[in-house]
């Protein structure tokens, strides 16, 4: 058995696609209409959210169905401090990070020891609690939310126009993207991978799963918080209807569509998730139905996503190879030739 030495090369169409995406992303604010730039900014928001959730679901393999809660906490923190304490945008970022990290710890510590699908339910419940709380508390403005949020500014420059908001979003995305890529290659990233693949084996190798899972949870929460802060100054008005269960599912859809654990996949997924419904706006009525059917069909036909991570491919190829070897061994051991052909065909 030969161990896989180097990651498989990128597929040629992927390089071309990546180049096209970069060109579009850079050219958009110069050549796009305000509407297109706005759609582009929304894509950036989902890229941020997708990258954050990717740490939790893609790297660490924990299913989070209430991720919009952290998005909400980030957005509300920034909005609250900017409106009620007249703070500038930038100082609210560390506060938002602290609040989301704290909420990640609070919900994560007791629940990360649970079975994975129980965790999904707890996070779902947490997401609903946050949304209902935001609807009912007075300081969050109730169902109307918080409005009149000031624009972000850099020195004398007020970030108000559509292209400048786009660039601000791009700056956020680049920071989060570089952060995610580095995290994946760090000791933390390797520990997450080990836990995701086999928690018991990881534990035997000296990795304390709860600590690393909690780190994934907290970092993912902070990224969502940053996305929320940006969302607040982008829209200048936020209300609980932006942070529903459907929002959490949409973010999950971004990374499932793109390919869990794959950074280009997340970007592609976010673009598809935002642009496709915009393109389908004429068929507004069937949009959600298409979305639901699309989820099921995607899972049935291409569970690994549109742009799966290279490590995912290595894994699949290794599994396929070892299955073929086992099948060959069985065939050599006296099983009928037809049976081995069948198992090779299926693997």
């Amino acid at each position, binding site marked *: 058995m030969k161990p896989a030495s180097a990651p498989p090369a990128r597929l040629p169409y992927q390089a071309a696609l990546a180049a096209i995406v970069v060109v579009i992303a850079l050219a958009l604010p110069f050549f796009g209409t305000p509407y297109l730039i706005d759609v582009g900014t929304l894509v950036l928001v989902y890229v941020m959210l997708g990258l954050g959730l990717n740490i939790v679901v893609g790297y660490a393999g924990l*299913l989070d169905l209430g991720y919009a809660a952290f998005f909400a906490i980030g957005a509300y923190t920034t909005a609250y401090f900017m409106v009620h304490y007249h703070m500038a945008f930038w100082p609210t970022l560390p506060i938002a990070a602290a609040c989301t990290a704290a909420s990640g710890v609070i*919900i994560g510590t*007791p*629940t990360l020891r*649970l*079975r*994975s*699908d*129980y965790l*999904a*339910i*707890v996070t*779902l*419940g*947490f997401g*609903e*609690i946050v949304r*209902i*709380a935001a*609807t*009912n508390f007075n300081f969050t403005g109730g169902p109307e939310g918080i409005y009149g949020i000031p624009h972000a500014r850099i020195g004398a420059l007020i970030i108000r126009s559509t292209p400048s908001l786009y660039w601000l979003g791009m700056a956020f995305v680049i920071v989060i993207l570089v952060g995610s890529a580095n995290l994946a290659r760090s000791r933390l990233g390797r520990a997450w991978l080990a836990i995701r693949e*086999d*928690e*018991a084996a990881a534990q035997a190798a000296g990795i304390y799963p709860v600590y690393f899972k909690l780190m994934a949870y907290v970092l993912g929460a902070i990224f969502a918080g940053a996305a929320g802060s940006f969302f607040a100054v982008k829209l200048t008005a936020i209300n609980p209807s932006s942070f529903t*269960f*459907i929002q959490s*599912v949409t973010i*999950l859809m971004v990374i*499932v569509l793109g390919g869990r654990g794959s950074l280009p996949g997340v970007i592609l997924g976010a673009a598809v998730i935002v642009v496709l419904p915009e393109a389908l706006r004429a068929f507004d*009525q*069937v949009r*959600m*139905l298409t*979305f*639901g*059917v*699309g*989820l*099921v069909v*995607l*899972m*049935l036909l291409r*569970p690994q996503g549109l742009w799966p991570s290279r490590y995912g491919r290595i894994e699949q190829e290794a599994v396929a190879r070892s299955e073929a070897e086992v099948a060959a061994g069985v065939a050599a051991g006296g099983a009928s030739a037809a049976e081995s052909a069948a198992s090779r065909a299926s693997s």
Partner: protein
Amino acid sequence: MEIALQQLVNGLTVGAFYALIALGYTMVYGIIRLINFAHGDVYAVGAFFGLSTYGLLALLHIDSPFLSTLLALVVSMCCTGLLGMVLYRVAYRPLLHARLSILISAIGASLTLEYALFLIYSPSFLVYPHLFGREGPTLAGIQVSWLQVLIFVSSIVLMAGLYTVVHRTKVGMAMRALAINQDAARLMGINVNRVISLTFFIGSTLASFAGVLTGLYYSQISFLMGFLIGLKAFTAAVLGGIGNIPGAVLGGFLLGVLESLAAGYYSSRWKDVVAFAVLIFILVVRPRGLLGERVVERM
């Protein structure tokens, strides 16, 4: 005291709905370890099928409240049961061994059902026929409507029937065998797919029963009605111990009563928070639920 008793009666009524839906969750989870996210929407579909049947019966001039309700229940339960089987066949069966994929497929199925109702019926609330008045017996100074009595008694009867099926019949034995070890059950000659299909059928009929009665009780239904109640019914199933039939019933009634008391004494706006807080609390301190057996983490 009077408020407490009144809320207790309301809570038991709502609890009966939770319990009926929780049974579907708990049976499916017990057998294939899937949180069937679409189950709440199956319940909503049941309510809509019931409404259609009522409409059809009105056209045929069948006006007797009891006869039409009986027919609506039967028709809706059959159709919804078949829908449950189709759901299993299309969205779940090919993914039985991919845990994350099947969960996402379930979410997709849930959205599909919701928005199919949205398109086919109506984006807004629909009014259910008003067949039963508010009158009824007075117990210890508490007004109870006949509909509440009907809901409570009929769901208890159904649950007892389900318990008998699972514990006294051959099919029930096959279900329990599947829950313990699927491969061994297959080796013993159990047709695994047929038993799982049947489980989906039974779970969906119970949900549709609850759906029709909910329509009668609240007099209105909407395409999103299944989402929140589905989550809460799952909470109830976890509360009682997932995979455990008496546990789901106990959890359902308990959750209904707790929530009604919270609504009566504190504020109805926070009652959903109470339900989810109970869920998180139970999962943290006693993940196996009140009546559940100890489960080992399986990856």
